[in-house]
C-alpha cells in the first residue's frame, strides 16, 4: 500500500506546474506570432481567392449588417437619452449633438461593432474552422493540394479586416441618426444643425483613429477566430472551446487595442 509520502513524491511540484504554464503561455505566443506571420506571408502570394473573399465579406459584413445597425441605432438613442439629464443639470442640452458624436465617432461605433462582430463572426469562424479541423477536412485539403491556410484563414481575415471598418462606419452613421431622432423629438433640433454640431468638435485625427481601430479590430477578430479554429483539438469539445476562445480572446484584445490606439492617437493631437 502506497503511503502519502510516496504519492507526493511523484506528483509535480507547484513550481514545476507554474513553469509549465509559463512555458505553455510563451509557446502559445510563439504560435500566434507564427500564425500571423504566415498570414502575411501567404496573403500576398498567388493564387488569390477573390471569390472566397467576396463570399466571406457577404457572410461577415452583409449578414451582420442588420444586427449591427440595430445595435448602433439603439446605442445612439440610449446614449442620447441617458446623457440628457446630466446636461440638463447644467442647462447645456444644446451640447447633446456634440457629446453624442464624440462618444459615437471616437469610441462607441468601432467598439460596439467589434464586440458584436466578435460575438457573431468570431465564434462562427472559430466553430467553422474548429469543426473542419476535428473532422480532418483541413488535413484532407492539405493532402489534396489545396492550400487550406490561404483558402480558409487568409480569406476570412481579409473579409473581417475589410468589412468591420465598413460596419463601424454604418454603425456610426445609424447611431448618429438614432441620436438625432431623440434630440429632434425632445429639443426640436433640425437635421442640419444637429450634424453641424455633431461634426464641430471632431477632427481628422479622431476620424483616422476610429478607422484604424476598426481595421485593427477586424483583423484581430478574424485572426483570433481563425487561430482558435485552425488549431482546435480534442474533437467536438474542441469546437466549442475554439468558438468560446475566439469570442473571449477577441473581445479582450479589442479592449486592449482600444486603450493602445487611444493612447497613440493622443500623440497626434
Amino acid at each position, binding site marked *: 500500500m502506497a503511503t502519502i509520502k510516496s504519492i507526493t513524491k511523484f506528483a509535480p511540484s507547484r513550481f514545476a506546474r507554474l513553469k509549465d504554464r509559463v512555458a505553455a503561455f510563451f509557446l502559445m505566443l510563439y504560435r500566434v506570432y507564427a500564425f500571423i506571420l504566415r498570414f502575411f506571408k501567404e496573403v500576398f502570394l498567388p493564387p488569390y481567392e477573390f471569390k472566397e473573399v467576396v463570399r466571406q465579406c*457577404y457572410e461577415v459584413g452583409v449578414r451582420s449588417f442588420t444586427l449591427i445597425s440595430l445595435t448602433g441605432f439603439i446605442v445612439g438613442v440610449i446614449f442620447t437619452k441617458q446623457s440628457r439629464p446630466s446636461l440638463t443639470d447644467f442647462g*447645456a442640452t444644446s451640447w447633446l449633438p456634440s457629446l453624442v458624436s464624440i462618444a459615437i465617432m471616437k469610441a462607441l461605433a468601432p467598439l460596439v461593432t467589434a464586440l458584436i462582430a466578435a460575438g457573431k463572426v468570431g465564434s462562427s469562424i472559430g466553430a467553422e474552422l474548429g469543426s473542419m479541423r476535428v473532422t480532418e477536412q483541413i488535413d484532407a485539403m492539405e493532402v489534396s493540394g489545396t492550400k487550406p491556410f490561404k483558402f480558409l484563414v487568409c480569406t476570412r481575415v481579409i473579409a473581417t479586416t*475589410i468589412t468591420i471598418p465598413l460596419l463601424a462606419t454604418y454603425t456610426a452613421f445609424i447611431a448618429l441618426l438614432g441620436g438625432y431622432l431623440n434630440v429632434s423629438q425632445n429639443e426640436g433640433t433640425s437635421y442640419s444643425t444637429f450634424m453641424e454640431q455633431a461634426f464641430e468638435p471632431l*477632427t*481628422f485625427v479622431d476620424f483616422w483613429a476610429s478607422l484604424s481601430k476598426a481595421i485593427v479590430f477586424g483583423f484581430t477578430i478574424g485572426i483570433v477566430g481563425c487561430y482558435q479554429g485552425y488549431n482546435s483539438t480534442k474533437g467536438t469539445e474542441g469546437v466549442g472551446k475554439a468558438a468560446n476562445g475566439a469570442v473571449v480572446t477577441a473581445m479582450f484584445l479589442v479592449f486592449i487595442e482600444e486603450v493602445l490606439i487611444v493612447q497613440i492617437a493622443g500623440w497626434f493631437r
Partner: protein
Amino acid sequence: MDASENRRAITVGIFVLLGVVVFVIGILTLGGQNKSFVKSIHISSIFSDVSGLKKGNNVWFSGVKVGVIKSIRFTGNSQVDVDMSIEASSQQYIHRNAGVRISSDGLIGNKIIVIDGGSPQAPIVQDGDVLQSEKLLSTDDIMKTLQQNNQNLLAITTDFKTLGHQILAGKGTVGALLADSTMAVQLRAAMRNLQMATQSASLMAVQLNRFSNRMNTKGGLADKLLTDTVAFNRIQESVAKLKEAANNATILTNNLNKASNKLNSTDNIMGVLLNDPTGAAKVQSTLNNLQQSSVKLNDDLEAVQHNFLLKGFFKKREKAKQDSLKAKM
C-alpha cells in the same frame, strides 16, 4: 459563377460601396467643418498666455467661424505664437489693425480666438501677417474683481449694520426721528403744514386756472385787447404819440446836453463865467468897481438933491407924496 454567387457578389459590392460613400461623406463633412478643403490664408498672433487654447479650436470674426488654429508654439521669451488658418473668402473683411483675443465658446465652452475691430482705412490682412493680440481677461482676473466686489459689499453691509444699530439706539437725525416722540409730533405738524401749503397751492392753481379762463372769456379785457380793432388803433395812436413825445424829449435832452457842454467850455460868456477863474476875477473886479461907482454916484445924487437947481423938484415930489398919504388916511 452561378446566379447565387453573382447575387452575393453584387450585394457585397453594394455594401462596400455604400460604406465607402458614407465614410467619404463623413470625411467631407468634417473637412467642411474644419475648413480643410477651402482656400485659406495663414495669419498669426503672439500671446503671453493662451489659457488652454488648442490646435483645431475655432477662429471667429464678428461672431462667424472663419477658420481654425493650425499650430501653437513657443516663441521669444515664453510667449506663444498662434498660427491661424483663415478662409480666403473672409480675408477682405479683416483689416491689419484688427485685434485678436482669446475668448470662450459659451461660459464653459471651448477656447476660441476672436478677431474684432479693425478700421476700413487700414489695409486688408494678407497671408503671413501678424495681428496685434489683446490681453485676455482671465478667470483669475474676474475672480479678483469679484473679490473686490465682495469686500465692497462687506464694507457696505458693515456700514448698514452700524447705521442700523445707531438708528435703533436713537442716535442721529433718523434715530431721533424714530425714538424722539416730540420730534415725531413736530414732524407731524410740519407734515400737516406742508399738506395745508399743498392744498393752498392747489387752490391757487385752481384760481389761476379760473383767472386764465376768464382772460380767455369773450368780451373780457384780454379778449378785447386781442380782438377789438378800434381799441387797438387807439392804443397804436397813443403809442405813436408817446413815441413822438419820447423823440421830442430825446431832442430836448440832446439840446440840454449841448448847452451843458457849452457851459463846461470857456468859448462863451457863460462858460467863462462858470469855468474861467481869470474871467471870474475880472468880473469880480468889475463888480467891485461898479459898487464903488454906485456909492460915489449915490453921493453925487445926494449932492444933486441939495443943488439949488433941482431942490424945488424934490420938495414938490415930497409934498405930493405926503398929500397922497393924507388922502388915504
